[in-house]
């Protein structure tokens, strides 16, 4: 094992080690809640730094002409191919995922403190889940990718049902588990068919899918197409794209509010990264087959997500459906192939930031009532807590795609690549749903700012950690909206091998 191969998996190692330390601390130390947080935050920080190191190491490896593929399992004939890849794609994914992890940890911190001794489980589960999420993005082999997917999913099933005392939490956990397992099964079936179609589970390397498909005329195009379709469906479930989104509103509503942001944002980044790894990394030759499938899923997601969000009276459900629409917008970028990756990265990472921030605010606001998130609880928030209301407004504007927020740049980017790739109908559909989306977000703004006479409810108390998370997400949403160009240039290089 050389240095580069260790570096390729170093973030996972660090985060998993963090998880183990947290569990051990939970057993041996008396009431060490703050220490769990330090360990977890430190693991995420180190993992972020390692992602930056990876990015630079990739440049060096390319300059040396070395391979970016690692861990060939030579003893198993079928798996005689690289398992892990380290490229700009995985490095950027790592940075985005662990940033979300760190911010999400801050958002969930109030809950960790509230549940006292059980908090250690929550922190450890989050660390495990994020190790799994990043594993999805570094996989050079579809079985590795599936392992990462399951690691993250199983951890998140538990997180979804974490606040056991609430009946919605049980429902959320069971629903998430059942539908999530179904999605995993569909994904595995798709992976098997991809293997049947290409003779490999590996994306890269000699005999991998990419090399095989670029050199061969496929004998069984039907099998391959079915495999592609099932893999897309499996991942569409995970990123809650329509029509595979039904679990999302219930899970968002039932899961502990502070944790929803990191779950939803983390899964979206990793899910789309995995989709890009498989489709654009391994199967770029089949773009004419998978791009139409994606364009239909994208169109459905935008329309269904936005239309249903209009009628929601619960903020968490509203954000869930808006997440379905956003999954559609992000998916739009894929139809352009390589050219769309930059737009995809920008959109998904910026959306992840706004999502974590929005759920942080939701958790702060709903803490004062009964952990519910009825839209009526938000009435007059701008009087009670103007800072919170203005922060939420800015995040909502970003989701709606209003200029000078990152959301606007993200939307223009994906619309441009889709239009450039010839999917003008999809762009126009996306633009139309954007307007309806504005109605959804402005309605929440109206509740916060326009609602009736001042009520006597006290100002919302926001703990310092949560306040920091909200500030960071809001400021970066604006900063990347005003000057997105360095990041846009960077993500254009974050292509899969």
């Amino acid at each position, binding site marked *: 094992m050389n240095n580069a191969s260790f570096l390729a998996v170093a973030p996972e190692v660090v985060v998993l080690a963090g998880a183990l330390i947290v569990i051990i601390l939970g057993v041996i130390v008396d009431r060490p809640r703050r220490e769990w947080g330090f360990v977890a935050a430190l693991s995420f920080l180190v993992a972020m730094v390692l992602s930056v190191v990876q990015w630079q190491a990739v440049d060096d490896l390319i300059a040396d002409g070395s391979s970016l593929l690692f861990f060939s399992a030579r003893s198993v004939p079928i798996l005689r191919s690289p398992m892990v890849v380290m490229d700009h794609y995985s490095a950027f994914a790592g940075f985005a995922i662990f940033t979300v992890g760190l911010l999400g940890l801050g958002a969930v911190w109030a809950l960790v403190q509230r549940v006292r001794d059980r908090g250690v489980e929550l922190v450890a589960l989050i660390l495990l889940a994020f190790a799994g999420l990043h594993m999805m993005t570094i996989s050079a082999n579809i079985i590795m990718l599936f392992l990462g997917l399951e690691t993250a999913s199983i951890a998140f099933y538990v997180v979804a049902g974490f606040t056991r005392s609430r009946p919605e939490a049980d429902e959320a956990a069971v629903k998430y588990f059942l539908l999530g397992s179904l999605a995993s099964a569909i994904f595995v079936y798709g992976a098997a068919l991809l293997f049947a179609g290409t003779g490999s589970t590996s994306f890269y390397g000699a005999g991998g899918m990419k090399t095989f498909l670029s050199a061969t005329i496929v004998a069984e195009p039907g099998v391959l197409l079915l495999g592609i379709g099932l893999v897309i469906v499996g991942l569409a479930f995970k990123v809650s794209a329509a029509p595979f989104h039904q679990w999302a509103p219930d899970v968002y509503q039932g899961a502990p509010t502070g944790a929803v942001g990191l779950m939803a944002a983390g899964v979206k980044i990793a899910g789309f990264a995995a989709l890009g790894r498989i489709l654009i990394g391994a199967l770029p030759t089949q773009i004419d087959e998978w791009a139409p499938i994606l364009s239909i899923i994208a169109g459905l997601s935008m329309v269904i997500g936005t239309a249903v969000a209009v009628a929601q009276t619960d903020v968490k459900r509203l954000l869930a459906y808006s997440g379905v629409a956003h999954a559609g917008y992000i998916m739009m970028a894929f139809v352009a192939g390589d050219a769309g990756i930059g737009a995809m990265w920008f959109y998904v990472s910026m959306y992840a930031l706004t999502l974590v921030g929005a759920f942080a605010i939701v958790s702060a606001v709903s803490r004062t009532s009964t952990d519910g998130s009825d839209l009526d609880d938000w009435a007059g928030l*701008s009087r009670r807590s103007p800072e919170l209301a203005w922060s939420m407004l800015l995040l909502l504007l970003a989701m709606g795609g209003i200029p000078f927020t990152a959301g606007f740049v993200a939307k*223009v980017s994906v619309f441009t690549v889709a*239009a450039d790739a010839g999917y003008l109908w999809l762009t126009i559909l996306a633009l139309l749903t954007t*307007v309806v989306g504005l109605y959804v977000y*402005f309605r929440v703004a109206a509740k916060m700012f326009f609602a009736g006479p001042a009520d006597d409810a006290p100002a919302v108390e926001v703990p310092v950690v949560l306040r920091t998370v909200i500030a960071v997400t809001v400021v970066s949403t604006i900063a990347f909206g005003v000057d997105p160009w360095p990041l846009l240039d960077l993500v*254009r290089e974050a292509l899969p091998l």
Partner: protein
Amino acid sequence: MTLTVLILLPLLGAMVIALLPKHRPELVFPVAIGVSILPLAASLWILVNFATGDPLFQFTEDYVLSETFGFGWRLGVDGISLFMVVLTGILVPLAIAASKSIAERPKQFMVAMLVLEAGLLGVFLALDLLLFFAFFEIVLVPMYLLIGIWGSDNRLYAAIKFVLFTAFGSIFLLAGIIVLAIEGGDATGAVTSFDFRTMLSLDLSSTMQIWLFLAFGVAFAIKVPIFPFHTWLPDAHTEAPTAGSVILAGLLLKMGTYGFLRFNLSLFPDASVDLAVYLGILGVIGIVYGAAVAIAQPDIKRLIAYSSVSHMGFVVLGIFALTSQGLSGAVFVMISHGLVTGALFLMIGMIYDRRHTRLISEYGGLATVMPIYAGIFLFMAFASIGLPGLSGFVGEFGVLLGSYLTFPVLAILAGSGVILAAVYMLWAYERVFTGSVTNPKNEGLSDLGFRELAILVPLIVLIVGIGVYPKPVLDRIEPSVELILDRVEAQTDYDVTEYGRVDEVVEPRGIVGETTGHAADESGHGDEEGSG
């Protein structure tokens, strides 16, 4: 740097206000007035230093922010945008000064006003289409808050209607900009290019021009608003607080006509020539319809709102007359309408502060209790009608003159708008001000105070000033307008009709004949008089 500073000044002011201590609410109003004077001073500085006679963009700034995506912080001002900028500088402090009675969250109100100002200035100064769109769209947010928080009874409906209508238009604009940017990117070798000047050099097919014209046109038509896209306007104008109505009518509507002038005519000359007649017809429908509906309004604010539809119809007709007089007249109407309608909304706000009703039937005989108010209102009514010697006349006369050359029938129909304006304005004046006081609630009303007079006097001076002596304004507008028309002529086989041509026929061939002969040869469609 000047223009960047101009855009940043209101934002800085907003920051100052946001940072004012919470326990000193009485500071908000004077500080807001103070900081809003700064952009006014800057815009006047630009007006003074503007080189008259130069048709090109001045004070240009071009900081490329992304080579890859062809985006830059590109600003510039020409004779058309110059007066929009100055108008913004003038109206915002006045609107703020008129908002002393705002008791609900005054700090947030002033911040919204100043952010709105920055957005408007950006719209009029941007020379990069993405930047333009960003400013065009950001204006929605403070306006939404202004209507929604500080509006009257039906504000929720009006606010969301305003946002949805304009955002619906904007998406077509964005789609058009994206298509143009991709074309521009192909031309420059970058991914995209949003530079207005790059786009001017694109060679677009005429079908493409039509589509793009329509995409841009829908957005601007909703903003203007051109009939039949006007239904958001009466609600928004009526429900908005006074300052919001002033900015809406005085400046926001101009974003639409400015868009037509700046982008549609220059970027899609073929389509502009082909579609001019339809827009002219819509403009005339707007003139007549707006005026006719205004007559029947029981609510004085709604009446003025509908009169805006009528006046903006003149602007549209003037623009698509595609003549020098028409375009200059259109820009002049934009300025005049901003001053006059702004003043009328301010005055309605003043009476609303006293009586909390806008229904005409609630008033009557106000002239006896508020003589100064009545006098100024009558003055503004005449300015709105277009009485010679006041600003309204110059622009509308120019539009009629200019459109008579290309669409004589439309010009004659449009002329009826002036008569209808007299009907609705004077009839409203009669019902509100003349006779004896019939409603006892009106008896004790106080006349205008010093602050209110101080708000109105500058507007009166300007309305008379540019009405009596419009030359300094027209001298700055005309070169830029001519440049647009030259471009249309160069790109299409359209000949701009001019009043001068008839004289040239009878003149002996000489210097004058040579110059016109050259133009006729180049176009290949020489008019009859060229050979005569």
